[in-house]
Structure formats: C-alpha cells, structure tokens
C-alpha cells in the first residue's frame, strides 16, 4: 500500500548516504554541546554559559533550517540562500550610511538578487558569473547619475557595488553548487558540496576561536581584531584541513586535492572574518545586528562564507567540472 509519506521516504537526501552521515554528525555534535552545557549548568550554577548557550541555540536553528530545506526540495534551498543574501545586503546598506539620493539605486541592487539566483537556478553559468561583476557594475552608477546628486556619488557607487559583490555575488555561489551537473560515481552531488563548504567554514570559525582561547598569545592584527592570534590561526587551519580530509566523501575530489582545497578555504574564511571586522571598526559597531540570538547579526555569521563560497566554488569548478 502506498503511504502518504512515500514522498518523504523517497526524498533524494535519504538515498544520499554521504549527506545523511554528516547531517547525523552535525546533530550529534549539537546534542552533545546542549547536554554538556546543561550538565555544567547543573554542577556549576554560577558558570556563565549564556553566550555559549545562545550560540548553540542558533546553531540548532540553522542546522534544522538547512536540513528541512534540503529534504523538502532543492528549490527551497535556492530561495533560502537568496533570502540570506537579502538579509546580509540589507544589514550592510542600513549601517553604512547611504545618502537619501541613493535609495533608487539601492532598490535596483535589491532587484538584482532574484535575477542572480534565477540565473543560478537555471544553471546558466556564463550569465551568472558576469551579471553582478559586469551588468550591475555598469548599470547602478547610471541610476545614481540619473538622480543627479553628485556630492559623494563616487563613494556611493563604490560602496554599493562592493557590498553587492560580497553579499550577493559571493553567497550566490552556494546556490550554484546545487546546479552543477552530475558526475558519474559521485553520489552526494550539489547538496554534498554545499554541506561540505558550509560545515567547513563554520568549523573553521569555531576552531580558530577555540585554539585562540586555548593557546592564543601572539596577536596577528591587534588594530583590527585583538582576539585573532597566530596560534588560533594556525591551529584553526590545521584542524580545518584535517576535518576537510575526512569529509572528502562529500566531494568528487581526491585526497591531495581535498587537502589543498580545505587549506585554501580555511584561509579564505579567516580573510573574510578580518575584512568584516575592519568594516565594523570603521563604522563603530561591535555586532552588526541581532537577527540570530548570540551571534551578532547575520553578517557576523556569513562574513567568512562570503569569502569561502566563491573560493571553494571556483576551485572545485576548475578541478572537477
């Protein structure tokens, strides 16, 4: 007899054993963390775990969101990633102090988000890769010029295009991973690649933070980010590369390739992190917003992702597709 939930049991993700393994690992880690904090909270009631607790809570939300969107349909994943781009883009232009005469150009830039993600969904690589770097790059200044306010127009042109590159062009590479063609003998597919780069990026953040807390002494760039140390950086990159090696089954790469790619992704994540820190120093805010509890704004979560997504995408595109 055909059950009502047939579609669920035949959902593609359940057949992708590789993806399921890593999903279980993520939920296992989260459960472990939650239980650990609960027990520590019982034993040592005065230990201050609020920050860590809210962080774990946000991870739960994000992991559930990720799994739910990928189980139901990849179409929802495109929409969800596009919405993430929108939130990050909105957060940035809201804090960067644009002029009132920039409003129409910002609106045009917002309209480019659905276009970019439709191109990713359609898998039209040629258009996807030039739409923001070429088309909006040429057209957004036109909208600013049409409004006719020239005082400070150069700053607006440059800033608007730059944040569009960071939050929309960069992040949209995650969506394009889902549109990559099938490779024979590689079952995890686009979902596997997406999971690989997101998991590796977040693990890299956690590892750099943990190693820095444990051993951190020598500061790298105290003017930008006083918590970043050489010990944290090196420890993080080594751990991330090792973890990446063990996650190779999510990608079609061979061992040497996955080691080099994980190493480069870890570096990209670090760069994204400090670039965003520098911006926050410039505008004088600590956290960019508070959309996800305990995590600062959306941007504080995806700052490294905006760098790792295009890095990973182009490496794997060159190596395997």
């Amino acid at each position, binding site marked *: 007899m055909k059950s009502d939930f047939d579609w669920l049991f035949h959902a593609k993700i359940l057949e992708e054993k590789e993806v399921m393994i890593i999903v279980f690992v993520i939920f296992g880690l989260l459960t472990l963390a939650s239980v650990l904090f609960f027990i520590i909270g019982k034993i040592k009631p005065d230990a201050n775990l609020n920050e860590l607790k809210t962080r774990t809570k946000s991870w739960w939300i994000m992991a559930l969101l990720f799994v739910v969107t990928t189980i139901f349909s990849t179409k929802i994943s495109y929409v969800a990633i596009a919405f993430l781009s*929108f*939130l990050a883009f*909105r*957060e940035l*232009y*809201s*804090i960067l102090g644009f002029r*009132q005469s920039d*409003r*129409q150009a*910002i*609106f045009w830039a*917002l309209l480019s988000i659905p276009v970019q993600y439709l191109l990713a969904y359609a898998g039209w690589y040629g258009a996807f890769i030039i739409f923001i770097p070429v088309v909006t790059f040429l057209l957004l200044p036109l909208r600013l010029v049409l409004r006719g306010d020239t005082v400070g127009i150069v700053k607006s042109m440059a800033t608007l295009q730059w944040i569009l590159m960071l939050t929309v062009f960069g992040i949209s590479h995650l969506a394009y991973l889902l549109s990559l063609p099938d490779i024979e003998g590689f079952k995890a597919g686009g979902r596997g690649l997406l999971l690989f780069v997101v998991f590796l990026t977040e693990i890299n953040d956690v590892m750099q933070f943990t190693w820095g807390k444990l051993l951190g002494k020598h500061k790298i760039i105290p003017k930008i980010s006083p918590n970043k140390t050489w010990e944290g950086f090196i420890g993080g990159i080594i751990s991330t590369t090792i973890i990446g090696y063990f996650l190779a089954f999510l990608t079609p790469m061979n061992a040497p390739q996955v080691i080099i790619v994980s190493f480069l992704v870890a570096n990209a994540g670090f760069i994204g992190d400090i670039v965003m820190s520098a911006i926050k120093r410039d505008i004088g805010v600590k956290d960019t*917003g*508070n959309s996800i509890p305990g995590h600062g704004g959306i941007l504080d979560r995806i700052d490294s992702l905006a760098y790792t997504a295009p890095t990973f995408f182009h490496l794997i595109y060159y190596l395997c597709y």
Partner: protein
Amino acid sequence: MLLKPFILRFTYSFLMRWILRWIIGVKWEKASFLSDEKQFIIIANHNSHLDTITLLASIPARILPKVKPVAAADYFGDTPFKAKMSSYFINALLIPRSEGLTAIRQMKKALDEGYSLIIYPEGSRGNPEEEQALKPGIAFLLSLCPQVKYVPAHLTGMGKALPKGENLLLPYESSLIYGKPRLIESSNRDEILRQIEDDFKILKSAALQN
C-alpha cells in the same frame, strides 16, 4: 462595524508584523505590557508613515481596535474616500491641525469614550533621524486627563525606509522601543512638556546603545 476590528487585526497583527519583521527589517520589543493598561496615550517621534504602521503592528491584537492614531484631517481626510480608508485601515482619529481647541476637544472625547490614542507631538514628519520641537497640544490634553497614562515610544530608521516626499519604500533596518507607562507629575503644561522631552531623550540614548 464588525468587519473593522477584523480588518485591523488581520492587517497589523498578522500581515504587517510579517512584512515589517522580515522584509523591512524592523525590530521591536513585545508591547504585551500594553494589555495591562486600561487606557493609554502612546507618544512617539515622527519621521515616516511607517511609524504608525509599526506602532499598530506592535500593539497586542486584542486591544488593537481600541487604539486610534491621531492624524491630520487636511492630509488623511481631504477627500471623503481617503477619510473612509483612514478610518477603516488605520482606525484614525482625524483632527483639524489649524484649529487647536477643536482638535483637543476631539481627542478628549475619544479618551472619554474609552479609546487609547497614538499622538505625534512633533506635529508632522521630520527629516530622517532628526527630532523637532514638541507642540504644546499634548501637554494641554494630558493636563485635561491626568488619570490617563502616557507611553513614550522611540522609532529609528523609519525615515530612511520611507522618508517624507518619497514614494519608494526601501527595506531598512529600523527599530521601535517603548518606555514605561507613566502619569504626568505636574499640572503645569511647560513641566509636562519637559517631562515628555526627558523621556524621549532617555529612550533615544537607549535606542543608540542597542
């Protein structure tokens, strides 16, 4: 008449809450404490039409039909159609801006009938993120109804999302915070005005720290 509370609740407590939160990017505290007050006057700064929409969306659905934003009759009621729409979709209390005494009398009457009010004592929408001097009408009204509590509210970013004189609504991270409901401490109108100004200053610095 039965339709109106339904329209208001659907528009603000459901539709607008969703749009403001996810599309525009407005953050607000839960205003559930307003349910505990029998009657109140919300006093807020004014930079955009979004101010009223956000305030109405933040109010608990149960008491929403009993809250009337005070609006200028020459703007929101200049045609009978517009007046009808303002009544149905904003639940507005239209007052003539040029005749101060009539306006006060109308607001007093609404309070006597048990309605709560939303008042912008700056009078009209100012430039984005700028405050204007308060008009004395609010002090007059409060001195006539000293038993009604007022609730100061501070909105940021609204003038950036939808400034005066622009038609394009742009998503923009903005916020609404409430102060505590308070009674006036004096019957002198200058002192009432000063009390409100002080509340506004405290709320403004609290909003900057968020």
